[in-house]
């Protein structure tokens, strides 16, 4: 028993803001007062209903409070059992969903201050992603500038569904700042809910909402490539977080084929999408939406055509696997080593500073 691959880097951990009140010490006077006198509710996104089975593994769910809100539990349930050397915190508190750009900037800043004080300062194995108000790229850049000096922040965090497709020039100032600071842009499952999560309208069931995240990632990847983000920012790295990864090969077959037929429309895309992905895009491991058998998984990994794309993640406290089965069957020892350690280190330059 026990996880056999300790010393790895967990690239998707979700510390939860316990309540809006927990942010009060980190909010400016203005936003703290606004929060209190307006009776603002907790900002949890409908992307992760707190009591949904997916939102927390049964044995990771606390007796009270939100899953992921307690550092001791994260140590005991995630960092310890998986022998995690370093873990990247991706807070999903719903500040990107606000309509007010100013309020979003105020709350994003508070979430980042909270992450520093209550997690990064308390636990040397933890690193953070910079929560940015993607409602307003100018404010988002300001937040990146504010945090970039703290080397414990290792990437910029966005949601996969925003006001606009993520490749649009609207967002380029964020990518410019990220590239300048050598920070990958992490794109996490979730939506600002400006549009229905499916191209066919609002679905009836949460099941469909979660399923839709993977097609949203496909569309986001299409957009990033076709708009020329990687031509404009040749050093930029993008990490797809909690995206699923088994859709990637077939998506690239399709995108690459249409690129061959339609590249006259997007002449700035002067390399094949598969090559662009190999150089610029990484994906976290969980959830593994793969074939049930090891042989099938091995075939799928072969379809990925690279052993550098996947980064280890538990997606703690979300319920993606049971026990210590964080790695699917069908991976070679060599690939496991890359997923656990080499690929994350190559993706996140700042992690290299902590690992000799």
């Amino acid at each position: 028993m026990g996880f056999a691959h300790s010393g790895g880097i967990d690239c998707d951990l979700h510390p939860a803001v316990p309540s809006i009140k927990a942010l009060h010490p980190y909010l400016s006077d203005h936003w703290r007062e606004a929060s209190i006198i307006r009776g603002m509710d907790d900002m949890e996104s409908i992307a992760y209903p707190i009591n949904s089975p997916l939102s927390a593994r049964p044995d990771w769910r606390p007796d009270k409070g939100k899953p992921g809100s307690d550092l001791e539990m994260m140590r005991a349930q995630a960092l310890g059992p998986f022998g995690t050397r370093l873990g990247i915190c991706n807070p999903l508190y719903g500040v990107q969903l606000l309509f007010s750009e100013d309020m979003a900037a105020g709350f994003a800043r508070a979430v980042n201050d909270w992450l520093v004080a209550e997690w990064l300062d308390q636990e040397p194995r933890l690193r953070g992603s910079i929560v940015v108000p993607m409602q307003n790229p100018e404010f988002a850049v300001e937040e990146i500038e504010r945090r970039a000096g703290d080397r414990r922040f290792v990437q910029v965090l966005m949601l996969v569904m925003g006001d606009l497709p993520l490749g649009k020039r609207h967002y380029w100032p964020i990518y410019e700042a990220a590239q300048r600071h050598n920070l990958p842009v992490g794109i996490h499952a979730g939506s600002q809910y400006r549009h229905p999560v499916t191209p066919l309208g609002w679905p009836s069931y949460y099941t469909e909402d979660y399923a839709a995240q993977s097609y949203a990632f496909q569309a986001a990847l299409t957009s990033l490539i076709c708009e020329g983000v990687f031509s404009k920012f040749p050093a930029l790295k993008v990490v797809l977080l909690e995206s699923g990864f088994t859709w990637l090969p077939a998506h690239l077959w399709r995108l690459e084929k249409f690129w061959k037929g339609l590249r006259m429309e997007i002449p700035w895309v002067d390399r094949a999408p598969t090559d662009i992905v190999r150089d610029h895009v990484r994906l976290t491991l969980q959830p593994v939406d793969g074939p049930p058998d090891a042989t099938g998984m091995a075939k799928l990994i072969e379809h990925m055509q690279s052993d550098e794309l996947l980064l280890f993640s538990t997606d703690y406290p979300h319920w993606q696997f049971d026990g210590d089965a964080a790695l699917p069957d069908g991976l070679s020892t060599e690939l496991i080593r890359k997923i656990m350690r080499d690929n994350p280190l190559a993706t996140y330059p700042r992690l290299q500073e902590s690992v000799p």
Partner: protein
Amino acid sequence: MNVQYRDQPVAEATNASKLMTADGDIHPGRNGPKDMAPFLAQRWQDHLATYGSRLRQAYQKGPAYPKSQPYASRRDSYPPEGGRPGSSLGFMRTQLLDPNNCVLGILNATGDNGQAFQNREFGAAMCHAMNEWLIAEWTSKEPRLKASLVVPFEDTQAAVAEIERYAGNPNFVQVLMLNRTAEPPGQKRYWPIYEAAARAKLPIGVHAFGFGGFPVTGSGWPSYYIEDMVGHAQSCQAFLTSFVIEGVFERIPATKLVLIESGFGWVPSLAWRLDKIWRRLRDETPHLKRLPSEYIREHVWLTTQPMEEPATRDHVLDTIDWIGWDRLLFATDYPHWDYDDPAHILPMPVPEAKRRDFFLGNALRLYGQPDAAAT
């Protein structure tokens, strides 16, 4: 469009061109509103002339994302006698049906066909006109051709009426929808359409495109035609997810769903994902009795064009193994620019029986045309 060729001639590929084929996606062309006039009441002809067809998109004419070619068509598909690509039955015979040894061609009259007009009464009238035109100009003249029944699926009652009007009519072999619906298509308001299709023993064919009105991604409208095209695979994933999770296959077990021109490579990953999510969240959907992948395996067919072409071509064989060789229907998408040529789409060594099913047998069984290959 086949972007890959093998350097050396492959025996199987040569055989493929000699096989009889069924073509799951042919687009009969119209030369303009005048083609519809014989089948459309004067009131609606006048309406069309005055107000246009008013889709849920910005422009009076043409697609919101300009295509890569006029009419999205092959440059060599203009009939020698004049007219638009796909509009001449004679030229379709000589350019498509004869050289491909096609014994069953499915006509999908997409485009400005009434299915997504803002004015639903007008839309229903146009759909009906399309069906009459399909019989008069195509299926009654060419026994190799069968049509998909154009139904105004955003107007449930009218769509049901159209299905009932043609139930048992041998000119039609499936009900046609488009994959960008105005609401998730598994939702209750569409069920009577699927029930009517099941009663009429017709599969539901879902072709790429449509004008539901929502952005074609969950993150808004993309910029480019290539994104619109690649995005059909995502729209189709949402379409299939809605069908499965709302329980259409559970509630109407005779439902057969054919996904047309949206690729098939994405199906295994989606099925695995839905299984995994459903295992976690099944208390939300107690109406489902089986794994999502089981419903998909039993109820879903897919046309092959545009053919998946991985760099390592044989990878697509794994994908077809995962989906099932009995579920793919060869299609060309004639006369469109991304046409697939049966001589080139499956150059890998594939056992003869599977090859025959892929190009012919699956379609003959699905569409109930066992005698087509005997003619």
